[in-house]
Structure formats: C-alpha cells, structure tokens
C-alpha cells in the first residue's frame, strides 16, 4: 500500500493545501489513511495523510498540544513524556489485535475516537479535543474550536469530527488538552470473582472517593483464574493511602497490591491492547454497554474469550468467525462494533431510522459527492 501511494504523489499530500487539492480533484472514492493500523479500509484511492506531520504547538504550562494529523503517535507521546505529561485517554495500540503494522497517527486516533481503560474516569479522546482543521468532501478547508480549554463559540464540530472515521472530512490538524503524568500508580488485584461479582466490586470501587482510573476484569487470566483489576494514580503518598483504603473497603476479599511501576504499566497496557485476544482465530467484537448489564450480556454472547474493561461498560469478545454478535445480544442500552472480522456484517452498529437520517444528512452536507471513506460509518 505504501509503495502504491508513493507512486501517486497527489495522494500523499504534505501540506493542508495539497490535501485540499487532492480531495477537490478526486474523481472517485478516497480511502483516508494514516498509519493504516486500525483495520478500516474501503474501496477507493488511498489518501495517505502521513506527509502532514509534526507537532505545531506544545505549551506544557497550558496543557495544550497541537499537531498535524499524520504525526506519529509515538512522536507525540515522546514529546509529552519529556515534560512529564501524557494523553489522558490512553489510546490503544491496535496492531497486536488486528495484526496490522505501520505507525499509528494522531489523526487516526482522533478519527476513531480511540480511548483506553482510563476513559472510564478521565474521559474519551473526544473529551480532550480542543480544535480541528479539516478538508471537507468538496476540498474546502474548515476550522472549528481552537487551542483553549473552554470554548463554546459556535457549534462543536470538533466532537462531530472526532470518531467520524473520515466520513465527513480529512483531518489536517488537531489540538488537544493533555494532563500531567502522575508520580505513582498502583494496581489492586482480586482473584476468583465471577463476572457478576467482579462488576459489583468495580461498581463499588467507582462509587468510592478514591478516584479509580482503571477497572477491568479478565475471567481467565494467564494464571488460569479470574482476576479483577483496579488502578489508582497520583502522588505517591496519595496512591498508598487510597490503596490501603480500598483494601479496607474490600476486606472480605483478599486484595493484592501491585505498585511496581513497570508491572502496573504492563498490566494496563495488556488491558488496553486486549492482549489476550491477540492471534486467536475468530472475530473480535467491542461492546459498549451499561456496566451493570455486562454479566447478562456476557451470558447472551457466549463468547469463546472475553475481557471486561470500563468497570464492565466495555466488553471485548471473541466469537466464531461470521457470528453476528448483535443478534446474540438482542436489545440493550449500548452498541456493538465488529473490530476484527470476516463476512459482510457492518463494522458499526446500524442506527435507528431517525438518527441514521440525521447522519446521512450530515454526510450529504459535508461530503455531497460521497467520496470520503464511503460505506464505513455513514
């Protein structure tokens, strides 16, 4: 794919003006692509955004960073780490799960509203988005939002663009709020709970004043038994205090505390990237639901393997190839995305008629020719 796009310089723009020109001149569908790591493809010429690269603004004292859309995520994370900061929403690295290669870009993260375990407490990618610049389906450059943390000036197209999977425009630049990287972190581990018990424990932890920044349950850990994980982060003394407060709160269970920074980071990286489903045959589904519904939905799913994140509000499920998870789930408050799969099931959950009509209306306005990532989301 990379070689092909190099042969077509018009589709590997290096400036926003070139990006606009490429869209304006397009004669057919365009498949927008950053690192190409998220397994989303469509028919059409690949429009490679990696040439639009580089951090354009970083003010640690204002917690603000802006970058061109094709900037590698690694570059952004390294710049933040150097100042003791980070992207709070913890975007996953999809390569292991999807078997893709390449380098994830910030534009891809934003286009997919990609968020990890900390989404539960800190918010999603969309919650940290301050501004966008993008090229709509007619090749017009549009900006919305800006670089300041509080902004209600006009409609929030920043949110609309975040998670729109390139269906309304090609991102050229994004600006984000970032946060300090905490001094310490700890992970509390409880063994042997079933899904219902784990969801209950996670709900109690989330309802405590101890600021849990991760709550996940693996029904079958590498050690062969269920493990429920809670993460706390902050200043070292505070982390120690909250760890012991939570241990006391869950006195009926045996609670292990892991406070080695490497081990804690590794545990949550494995939850974030859904390591346990890597390389396994079958389709991978991602279900966003009300946390307390998770035990019932797990029964309906009958998955071959699963992982519960977001205190139960996010279920990663491995199902036999071609299985329609939506059919198994029936009606519930939430939606299911086929993250990795075969067959002709739509990746994204079909929307109710009135919502679908609004989405199509927006697509028609922003991309009247229907050439941007057609058929993926809208």
């Amino acid at each position, binding site marked *: 794919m990379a070689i092909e796009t190099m042969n077509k310089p018009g589709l590997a723009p290096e400036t926003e003006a070139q990006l606009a020109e490429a869209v304006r001149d397009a004669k057919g569908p365009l498949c927008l692509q950053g690192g190409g790591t998220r397994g989303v493809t469509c028919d059409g010429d690949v429009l490679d955004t990696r040439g639009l690269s580089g951090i354009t603004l970083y*003010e*640690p*004292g*204002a917690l603000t960073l802006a970058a061109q859309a094709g900037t590698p995520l690694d570059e952004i994370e390294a710049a933040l780490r150097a100042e*003791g900061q980070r992207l709070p929403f913890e975007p996953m690295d999809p390569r292991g799960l999807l078997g893709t290669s390449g380098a994830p870009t910030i534009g891809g993260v934003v286009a997919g509203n990609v968020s990890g375990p900390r989404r*539960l407490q800190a*918010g*999603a990618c969309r*919650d940290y988005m301050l501004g966008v610049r993008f090229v709509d389906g007619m090749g017009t*450059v549009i*900006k*919305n939002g800006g*670089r*300041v*943390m509080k902004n*209600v*000036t*006009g*409609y*929030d*197209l920043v*949110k*609309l663009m*975040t*998670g*729109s999977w390139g*269906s*309304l425009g090609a991102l050229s630049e994004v600006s984000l709020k970032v946060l*300090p990287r*905490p*001094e310490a972190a700890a992970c509390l581990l409880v063994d042997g709970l079933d899904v219902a018990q784990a969801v209950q424990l996670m*709900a109690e932890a989330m*309802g405590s*004043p101890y600021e849990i920044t991760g709550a996940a349950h693996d029904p079958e850990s590498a050690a062969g038994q269920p493990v429920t994980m809670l993460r706390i982060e902050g*200043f070292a*003394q*505070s982390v120690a*205090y909250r760890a012991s*407060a939570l241990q006391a709160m869950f006195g009926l269970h045996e609670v292990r505390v892991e406070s080695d920074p490497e081990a804690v980071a590794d545990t949550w990286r494995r939850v974030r990237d859904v390591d346990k489903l890597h390389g396994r045959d079958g389709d991978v589904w991602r279900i*966003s639901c009300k*946390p*307390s519904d998770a035990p019932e939905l797990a029964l309906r799913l009958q998955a071959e393997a699963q992982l519960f994140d*977001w205190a139960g*509000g996010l279920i990663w499920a491995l199902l036999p190839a071609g299985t329609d998870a939506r059919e198994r789930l029936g009606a519930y*408050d*939430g*939606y299911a995305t086929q993250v990795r799969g075969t067959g002709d099931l739509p990746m994204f*959950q079909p*929307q*109710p008629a*009135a*919502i679908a009509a*609004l*989405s199509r*209306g927006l697509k*028609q*306005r*922003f991309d009247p020719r229907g050439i941007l990532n057609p058929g993926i*989301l*809208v």
Partner: protein
Amino acid sequence: MQMPAPDSTVLTRKARIVERLLSVLPADAVIHDPAETRAYECDALTAYRCPPLAAVLPATTEEVAAVLRICHEEGVPVVPRGAGTSLAGGALPTADSVILGVARMNAVLETDYDNRVIRVQTGRTNLSVTGAVEENDFFYAPDPSSQLACAIAGNIAMNSGGAHCLKYGVTTNNLLGVTMVQMDGTVVEIGGAHLDSGGLDLLGLICGSEGQLGVVTEATLRILRKPEGARPVLMGFDSNEVAGACVSDIIKAGLLPVAIEFMDRPCIRATEDFAKAGYPDCEALLIVEVEGSEAEIDEQLGLILQIARRHDPVELREAKDADEAARIWLGRKSAFGAMGNINDYMCLDGTIPVSELPYVLRRIGELSGEYGLEVANVFHAGDGNMHPLILFDANAPGQLEKCEALGAEILKLCVEVGGCLTGEHGVGIEKRDLMVDQYAPDDLEAQMAVKDVFDDKWLLNPAKVFPLAASEARRMSALAAE
C-alpha cells in the same frame, strides 16, 4: 443589536396558532395574553427585550413534540427556554416566536448509583441534580455560578462550565445521553448510560448548539462520588505577570487543583469594600483549591505553597478549617454582587491561552483607559476563561453602547491571541456579530450546514449564534418556501 423583522403572517395568525397550541396543552400551559407574555421578554441579558407571540409550558416529551409539530406546520419560530439565566441572550424571543419553557419538566426519572448516572427532565435546576444524589455522597460536577437557578436544558444548550471544570470538565464531558425533539416533532434518543457513541457523535454536536438543533427534554448525566474533602489557599502577588507565572508553574508541576481563581486589583478592592473578606491589598490574587483526604490535601497544598513562595507572594493564607475556607471564598463568590453594588456591569467570557494572561490583562487595562470605563477581572485562571467586568452606568446616555464597544474590543483581543469569544456563556445574540472575527466564512458555512440538517426551516431559536448577514439567505429561502 439588530433582530430580524417578525414574520407578519405569523403575527396575523396568532389566534389560530394559540388555538392549535391549546388543543394539545392544558389551558394553563399556554400563555398568550400580552400582559403575561411580558414575563418572557428577556433572559439575564436584560438590555434586550421583546415579548414573544406566546409562551408554552409543556410537561412531557409528547407535549413538546406536539407543540413543535404545530409550530413546524405553521412556520412559527420557537425559542427554547430553560430557566432564563442566559447572560448572552440565548433565550431572547422574537415577536413572532413561541417560547417553549421546560420549567414544568423537572422530575428525576432514574437514579443509578451502580452505573453512576442520573436521568432527569431538563427543566430541573443544576443544583437540584446534586441535591437529588447528595444524601448518598454523590454530586453532578458542572457548577455554573447560576447553578441555584439555571436549568439542565440551558446547561446543555450552552455547554455550561463552572469553577471546577479544570478537573471535572464542562457539561459535554458529563452528558451521556439525551431525549431530543426535533423541530418537526420527531423524538430521538441519543446516547444512554453507556459510554461514547456508536455512530457520529451527535450528542457532542447537540451539546452547546444553543437550542438551535432540537429541544432536549431528558438527559442522562454522569454523577460522581464526592471527594473526602476540599481546601483552598489564598495567595497575593504584586503583579499580574507573577500570578500568571505561578498558575503556569502549578500546572507544570503535575498538580491538578479543582479550581484556580484569579482576581485583579480593581476586583479585589470592590469585593473588599462589599464583602470584607479580609483580602490583602495587592495587584493579583489567586485562590487555589485542592481535593482529597486530609493527608492528600496537605501534600498537594504543600507543593503548591512551595511553588508560590518561589514567586515572592505578598500573602499566603491556608485555610485551617471550614470557617477560614469560607472566608477565602467569600470575596470571590461575592465578586459579581460587589460589582453590581457599585454600578451596572457587563460580564464578558472570552478564553485565552494561559500563557497570554499577562499581556491580555495589560491590554485590557489600556483599553479600559481609552474608553474611560473601569474593568475588573475575575476568572478561572487554570483554563484561561476570563470574566472581565466592564462597569458602566445604564442610565447615562451612550454608556451602554460604549460598554458594548469596549466589550467587543476585549473579545477580539482574546481571539487575536489564540483564544475565543466565549468560554462558557455561549454566543446567543450578544456575540453573534463577532463570530466573523473568530471564524472564516467557510467555517461558519459548515456550522450552518449542520443547522440545515436538523432544522431545515431555520425555526429553532432564531437570530442567535450566526451573524444575521451570514444566515440571511437561508432564512429568506425558508420563509419563501412557506
């Protein structure tokens, strides 16, 4: 402030429109006597007033849908209204409009502590959402200073913030789902007790759309467990620059206070005369509040005070108990009242990059001198959301216009340094005509295209957000199609 001429064909059909509204609502929910519609002639931006054609107070989503269907058929503009506390004229009627007030829809529909959400009708006031869950030590985080009166409907329309949003975010970060009625009466459910959207983020789009895309009747809101405690510290500095640098250093050190409030000398003096909070006589004052257990608070405040000392403060005052904490907040919380005591004032709401604080304050001082109107600054420093208060005398001829002109200059200054016109109050009519200073025509066109999709006749909350000239072609063609 110019408003579009009312549609005379609507005015002449008033009797028929009222009759149709009465066919779907109880008699006491349709207000059409000119003596009574006066009550809805303005919101908290009282400089502009216009009684509506009628006002309706539906009690259910179905009634809202019925009202909107009728207004859609009749081509009548609709102005949704929460509690009428908008400082931007977000609920200002036009003479040909029906005010749709959600005040009768104030029930709590479901409280779910396991999933940490509450579902309410949107006429409920902000503070009473917290009131519904505080016996279980939970709270709803966004806390605009009008929280005692303002409604969730208005909070969603304006994407309201508050003093504590540095840590907890604004309305859009705490809103999980809505029931919304479109202008043609279609009821849609968006989001729910689960996280994030399965399709386009319509929830994010609706939040902050100033009631122009639909009428939100129910909302699922995130509730949080209260922290164990909170404590403020007060710091005085002898220049705005130094106070600004101190804010930046606190943030860079990895601390995330729940609030960092800034007051400048004119504001300190006025509040001191009014509230006698015992504030030091200095150029700039910061109030920084942190949360947690006693030990956690001690640790964070210790670090904050260390940073503050590096900036040669003229005063450092740590609250030892609840009483002292209240005294520290007293002046800040009475700042607006203190200003009102001296004079009429206009409250601005621009946001700037925190690094531009010293420059912007200096420029505001210069502009204040040029216009001969005093400006006091009080604002949320952690996130750069400024609230310059321009003092003027509404009874003196020409002063309001002069004050508005100075306000516009200050907001343009905010845009110039990389900020925006409004951080939490919304555009409304107040900043409508300044939108061209922030956005290029193509940027505005993209926003108006969204309105076309949700409200093709441009009937919802007319004449707000977009400059009249920018929206004229759309409004005229919608009118011609009638």
